[in-house]
């Protein structure tokens, strides 16, 4: 299945901004984080199709998956 993965802030360094990735069926949000060698502790927010999600969420074909470090502002 094809999932669009988007990275933000310093997660982009040495990786990418946006990439369509071919993933095996049943891949979870957390597995993508692990595959990208991002420390789960550093992840602040994950959104699947603009809704917040958790590491155990199973991704579907065509999903847009965004991964952010802990950030804030205002």
């Amino acid at each position: 299945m094809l999932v669009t993965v988007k990275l933000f802030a310093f997660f982009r360094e040495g990786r990418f901004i946006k990439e369509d990735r071919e993933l095996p069926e049943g891949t979870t949000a957390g597995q993508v984080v692990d595959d990208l060698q991002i420390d789960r502790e550093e992840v602040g927010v994950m959104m699947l199709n603009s809704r917040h999600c958790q590491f155990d969420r199973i991704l579907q074909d065509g999903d847009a998956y965004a991964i952010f470090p802990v950030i804030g502002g205002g």
Partner: protein
Amino acid sequence: MADKIFRVNMTDLSTSIEEVPENWAGHGGRGLTSNIVAAEVPPTCHALGPKNKLIFAPGLLSGTPASNSGRISAGAKSPLTGTIKESNSGGTSAQRLAKMGCKALIIEGQPQDDSWYSLSLTPEGVTITKEEELIGKGNFAVIEAVEKRFTDKIGVLSIGQAGEMQMSGANISVKDPDSHIRSLGRGGLGAVMGSKKIKFIALDAQDGKVEIADTEAFKAANKVFTKALVDHPVSQGLGQYGTAVLVNIINEAGGLPTKNFTTGQFEGHEQISGETMHDLIVERGGKPKHGCHAGCVIQCSQVFNDAKGKYKTSGIEYESIWGMGADCTIDDLDKIAEMDSIMDDIGIDTIETAVAFGVAMEAGVLNFGDADEMTRILKEEIATGTPLGRIIGNGAGNVGRTYGVTRVPVVKNQAIPAYDPRSIKGIGITYATSTQGADHTMGYTIATEILGVGGTADPLSKEGMVELSRNLQIATAAIDSTGMCVFIAFAALDDATCLPALIDLLNARFGISLTADDVSNLGMSILKTERAFNEAAGFTNLDDRLPEFFSEEPVAPHNVVWDFTGEEIDSFWNF
């Protein structure tokens, strides 16, 4: 040296130094400005008339070595909202006032003639001087001239042309450590200063120092407090990307109001994001990290250079970038930085003015995305006070009324900032119930709804949002009294050592023994004082509502509307 109240009467041009009344002694910053306004300003007075008063107060910890304690509060009845108003800012003024022993500066009355004045404060008191040379000038020229007349170290509070013309979007500029500008932005306080005919206030603390009751305890508490701030990942991200790091995440969540609040995502988000800004700043030899006041350990400000590597602006905030960017559909950071600098110079609130432009674009006054025309209007119409300039300079509500637009994002006539309340529902409760009109900083529910700081809450669900906004508004009112930057809240929400250390700092500064409950009670009492002023000014619960279009027009991508009932909103005040 005990702190004093400095009072200036602009009707008879007299000044005095007074003892601090006992019931104000425990207050600083917002708590003090709001208590003084509540005690001395008739709630039904005209905000630009002689009965309104303009109050400046440093926070309780300002002028001490406590990290991030350099915020100054300004208060008055707002000409924009008609409510009580407190606006706070970094810069060097809070520390100057605190070090000269000025707990609050109260400016009252109004000159009888058309003369303009400046004020100069030292530990000995206030001097009023007639001012001619700088009238009609922008804030950058004022700061440069005031530094020449006094010293480079002088603290400066000033108004630009917008304040002189008493536009209700006018702000008060605060000189930062590099002679650039921070702003007491919201609610038109620059117009109140203009109505008192004061162009600038020079602050010279001489060799004044803030006394600390228990220096050892203070040092120990500051160490713990500073560590909590520095260690929190949000602080680190703010230093690297500035507050504009929010552009992409709010866009991703579908809550980035775009094209005058007609949709929740902006195609050009990447071009105006904190990530892009960071890369541009580094490439052009600017500074991604910059403190708006001495002692800030978060450093969310930055120095932004133009394509030739020349200084353009500093402290360009997420809300400013959003307003000129997504809301007006401009995807060019250089054009946004140019307008940010012009707005600093004219002295007009970037949020109010950008939203006003969005409404003007919807009305067909100019096209969406036309940054060049926006820049022209700022320079040639607002700065000079043409009829169009005054229409826009008096805010988003004014533009809507003038051109018959119904999609006008304001609460109590103050522009709604950078988070759509349909798709981020908790912040809508803050906009609706804030004592000061729509203002995200009054209770920043985004932390929990979007950023996962201080717990989590589904931004599309109403559940728990009233309570979340209430708790944050109470805490914020207390934090706004300490002189602390509101960004300490991220650490305070997540790190159990942060808030106790802040309370220890207060106790060591004054030799008192506050508890967490006392601080919470302080926040509640400030909110109730502010609300009582508004009620006496004629506001009711029916003013605590969002504009009708939020309930009628679903916003993409989630296609949701604002769906809180009046009763649910009103339950905010059950405390």
